[in-house]
């Protein structure tokens, strides 16, 4: 543990932190159609009630990954980079952030009249080394998306990877807060 370069005690103390965002209004059919159009997905279950019912659904549904974009639950303002969505604002000095990946587990489709809440939590932070020996901090977060009936629609486990930019691992080890 004393070998950790990026994972300071201050950062580690944030494991377990939570944040929740509830959309100000239902998803709406226009948002669903816009997303499908932007992706280029012509599946009619997103836009045509008849096609959706023929597929055994009650009516049009949202493309599964639409609700996992947290920006839509925010009311602003955007930050200087233009970003509006959820962030933990982790202070990892002298590092570069890249997205690791996502695991989505979908339990049902979201519907146009659903009001979504995203329940985020920091599940874990682990310091590892890249194949070249460079320290990296892997932050695992989880978001559970529920509707207005508290039914789970999706669970999203997401990893963010902060890779040290220090020339040598030792040089990055300046006193943690």
């Amino acid at each position, binding site marked *: 543990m004393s070998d950790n370069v990026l994972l300071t005690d201050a950062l580690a103390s944030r494991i377990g932190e939570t944040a929740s965002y509830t959309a100000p209004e239902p998803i709406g059919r226009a948002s669903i159609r816009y997303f499908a159009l932007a992706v280029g997905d012509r*599946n009619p279950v997103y836009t045509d009630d008849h096609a959706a019912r023929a597929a055994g659904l009650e009516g049009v549904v949202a493309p599964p990954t639409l609700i996992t974009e947290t920006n839509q639950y925010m009311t602003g303002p955007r930050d200087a980079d*233009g970003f509006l969505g959820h962030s933990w604002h982790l202070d990892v000095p002298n590092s570069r952030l890249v997205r690791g990946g*996502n695991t989505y587990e979908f339990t049902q489709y979201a519907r146009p009249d659903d009001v979504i809440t995203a329940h985020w939590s920091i599940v874990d932070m682990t310091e590892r080394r890249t194949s070249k020996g460079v320290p990296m901090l892997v932050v695992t977060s989880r978001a559970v998306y529920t509707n207005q009936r508290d039914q789970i629609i999706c669970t999203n486990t997401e990893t963010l990877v902060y890779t040290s930019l220090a020339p040598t691992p030792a040089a990055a080890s300046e006193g943690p807060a």
Partner: protein
Amino acid sequence: MSNETRLQVGDRLPDLARTIELPDMVAYAGATWDWHRLHYDPAYLASKGIPTPVIDGQVFGALLVEQLQDSLGPRAFVRRLEFRFKNLVFAGETVSCVSTVTEMHESDDTVVLSFDCEVVVVGDNARVAVGPASAVVVLPR
């Protein structure tokens, strides 16, 4: 009767290829309320030493869902989708979703199919964009 019952372990779904240009990225940014400059702002990109706008990686998840559902029909429900980002993809590049059946479990009322997936960039600078990736899809019988 339906296509899905003809699938077998080892079968590869029809690839889904898509060229993603700047207007498509702007549309996706709008549709997801994500106005991060990384996806469209030349001055911002230049300040970061990035030559071309970067495609939002989440769109590849949406494309994998599209490929699975287009291949398996409107009753198919994607229950699980897991992916890791391997390389950035830039405006104007063409990606292709490649998915192969790895497992198939039939019960009285459902068929559950597992897939190995990958999103690759095709063309001059071919590389893996997303992988490894996997999906589980449930089909009613």
